[in-house]
């Protein structure tokens, strides 16, 4: 595939597949609760409808409230697009490495939290405050987890990391196991899933993400929801492609691309199912348990890093 097409594919993949993954998780949860659930394509319909609706803006809001959805959406989508989906030959990856990816997500979150504060309601501030608490503990854990990988591959460029993973001899690295567990925990926290936050709730006192976007409506709400779905897909792809890079396509042949696409779809479906199952069997945690949970993630990431330094020295 030529590079321009590949870049376009990246953007389209994340933008278009995100509602599907979210729908799939919902579907799995519904089946586990003995409900039929909404159709898989319901997510698209909702977005489409919201996009065409008139947007209500509270009279206490400032311009930040109106630009925030665009910033959140653009930064999340751009962050996602730098993540190799099919293979390591991704030109976008050299524009923004993994640290920039985390930075772009932080940019989106900054505006999301500002939007929560903007209307001047108690719920908005509550959501922002909690979101910033969670993210400030989660961010070091994410970076520690990915640093383990980047130290192994000697690069923070995601394309180089993927390339390294594809071409290195298969070996069981204890550090990767720890990093994987850490990233799983953090991914759940960062995408606002159970047990850290519940995307399906409007129960006032437990909301985090929903509290921040409480006032949004119409196309603004569509962008916020869409960005949250893209973020979920982003973390899912990050997990499956960095830790299970099977089937990824190093050369860029048509068959290879097709295989890679099938592989990644399959892997994402598995992740979605797993997420649906965990969400069904777990209950949401109290907010002040969340720091313990994230400390656990941080500790796992740290263990991963130390085991890399101690056990896998020079094992390039």
């Amino acid at each position, binding site marked *: 595939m030529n590079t321009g097409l590949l870049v376009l594919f990246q953007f389209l993949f994340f933008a278009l597949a995100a509602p599907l993954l979210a729908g799939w998780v919902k579907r799995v949860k519904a089946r586990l609760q003995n409900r039929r659930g909404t159709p898989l394509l319901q997510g698209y319909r909702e977005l489409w409808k*919201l*996009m065409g609706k*008139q*947007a*209500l*803006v*509270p009279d*206490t809001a*400032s311009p*930040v409230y109106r630009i925030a959805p*665009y910033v959140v959406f*653009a*930064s999340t*989508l*751009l962050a996602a697009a730098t993540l190799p989906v099919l293979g390591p030959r991704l030109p976008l990856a050299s*524009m*923004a490495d993994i*640290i*920039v990816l985390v*930075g772009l997500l*932080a940019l989106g*979150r*900054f505006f999301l*939290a*500002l939007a*929560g*504060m*903007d*209307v*001047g*309601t*108690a719920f*908005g*501030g509550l959501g922002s*405050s*909690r979101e*910033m608490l969670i*993210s*400030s*503990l989660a*961010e*070091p854990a994410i*970076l*520690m987890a990915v*640093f383990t990988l980047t*130290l192994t591959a000697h*690069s*923070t*460029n995601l394309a180089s990391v993927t390339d390294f993973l594809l071409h290195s001899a298969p070996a069981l690295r204890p550090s990767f196991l720890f990093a994987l567990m850490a990233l799983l925990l953090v991914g759940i926290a960062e995408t606002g899933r159970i047990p850290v936050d519940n995307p399906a709730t*409007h129960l*006032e006192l437990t909301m985090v993400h929903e509290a921040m976007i*409480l006032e949004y409506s*119409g*196309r603004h709400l*569509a*962008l916020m929801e869409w960005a949250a779905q893209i973020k979920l897909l982003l973390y899912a792809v990050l997990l499956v492609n960095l830790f299970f890079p099977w089937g990824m396509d190093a050369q860029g042949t048509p068959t290879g691309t097709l295989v890679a696409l099938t592989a990644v779809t399959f892997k994402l479906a598995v992740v979605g199912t797993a997420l649906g199952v965990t969400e069904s069997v777990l209950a949401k945690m109290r907010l002040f348990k969340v720091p313990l949970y994230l400390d656990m993630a941080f500790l796992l990431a740290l263990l991963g890093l*130390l085991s890399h*330094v*101690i056990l896998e*020295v020079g094992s390039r």
Partner: protein
Amino acid sequence: MAVPVSLWPALPALPLVMAVTGLSARRPAVLLFFALMLLDGLLAAALGLGLLTGQLPTVSHSLVTGLPGLAWHLRLDPLSGWFLLLIGLVQVAVAPYGPGYVRELLPGHRTPGALGFFTALFLLGMQLVVVADDAFLFMIAWELMSLSSYVLVVFHHQRSENRRAGFLYLLMAHVGALAILLAFGVLATHGHGFAFDTLRSADVPPLWSTVAFVLALVGFGMKAGVLPLHVWLPEAHPVAPSHVSALMSGVMLKVAVYGFVRFTFDLCGAPALQTGWGVALLTVGSLTALYGVLFALMQHDIKRLLAYHSVENIGIIFLGLGLAVIFRATGHPGVAAVALAAALYHTLNHALFKSLLFLGAGAVMHSTHERDIERMGGLLRRMPWTGTFFLVGCLSISALPPFNGFVSEWLTFQAALQTWVLDSGLLRSLLPIAAAMLALTGALAAACFVKVYGVVFLGQGRSRHARHARRVPRGMRAGQAWLALLCVLFGILPVPIVRALGTITGPILGDDLHAASVQGLLWLTPISPKTASYGPPLVVLALGLTWWLTARLLRRGRARGVVSCEPWDCGFSRPTPRMQYTATSFAQPILRVFRVLFDVEEGLEERGGIHYHLHVRDRLWRLLYEPIGRGVLGAARQVARLQSGRLRAYLAGSFATLLMLLWVIGL
């Protein structure tokens, strides 16, 4: 824009003229004062730029002033140039800001001349420190800077807490200056002279150079605000007039960083660097950063909060310096150069965004007469320009792409991630932990600035003053606009800047960062393109394109416009300003998580309704400073026993002293 290097004498001359004009508080004199400040700033920035790009050669001069046999030397080299640029850029912002701010400050003040006079001396002191080429002139300039800034700190001396803050500052500045003097003394003893050239070529044994390093770290660290020597900083910086706070926090701390870099990397010299020093710097740096940001989160006085953030950023800078020392000492000059460049880049970035934030805070205080952010709110609609510039400052200091703070933190991360080149397992695990601390600091800083911006500029006004805030004069906005523009520029175009930094790291560390710009202006590739690259112009472009396409996609809904409505708030009644989240409640979960670090006093009291109060104090006061204070007082009391009032005892004492001195001389 090549400036003839022969213009350099204007650099000290202009502040002297400024000092004279500053004595008068009449309007034309004030305007002339700030015009001269602008001119001086432009000159400093132009000279700095010339030195960095190599258009100007490194020049040395000796001055006729000084003591017989101890002439004063000046030298302008790329490292001085970098800091001249920094001083100049901030000065250019402060100059248009000053007249509007001072107009409100001066009437009714008993000593208006002091402000201008000492501001000029303060600038002179800072500029002389960075061009001084011998320890003697360096110390004179350093003291000039410290003393004149003391006067500025106690400018509002009618309030007792300002006098107290000023005294603390004066005391700590002098303990620090003493340590610096001793550090120079160690090198001078081995080099037999005070000129920097002599100090550079001094042959210092490793043990003594470690002693010098520790003294320099204490001395310069005290000025820079390194843990645990930072306590004066959040007391002293906020009480000065805001444009002076910007200069103190934005520039003076950087002069301390300059002193430290000059001393460690240039005078001690790269070959003398030891791994242990690096580990010490790394530890001190990461702890300072974390401590600073956690305390910043607990503040609700806007200027105190910003001062604590200065502590945080100084920590980040020292972390970078620590990485540079470690990599140089283990024989990896290339990575060391990246780390040093990251630290210096962050130094400049911090000067820009912190000055911007202080000027913004000054503007907010100017129009609301409030310092407590709990009494602000909704100011973005009252002061749209200040609000926009302040947002740029917040995004920059929170290290978010594509702003400037992100670039320097990214470079620091890149240096820390080269840990695999090291041989020692301990170091290899220490560096990523420091990187994680940096990540935690960055995330907490973002939380803190969501709090600041959300509480000050968004929401609804929490007091009458905030609801009736007025725009600030155009000049004050211009100063902020300049810095905001620079924050964006330095974030989007890092490659020329890193290339300029190469002229500093080249002579000092032996690597001129050639690799960083191999891919042209668009890509920053500190180590190699394969290892890591960051293309901020493209990130901006891609963000803009995505934004545009999104807007296109939404045109169906956009055609229907927006409707203004009451906030929904889950169907409760219309929220009043008092129902909003406050700064204290915003930070409460973080306070609870990191409770062990704070000295917290909270409680409810009933006086005409229930009031909640919360005081968060620096634990170090109780653990470190109060025992030291008690010790000093106790010692003084013991010494005071000598003062018995009996003449015979005094005579005996003098006689004994004389005998002892004669014995010492006879040795």
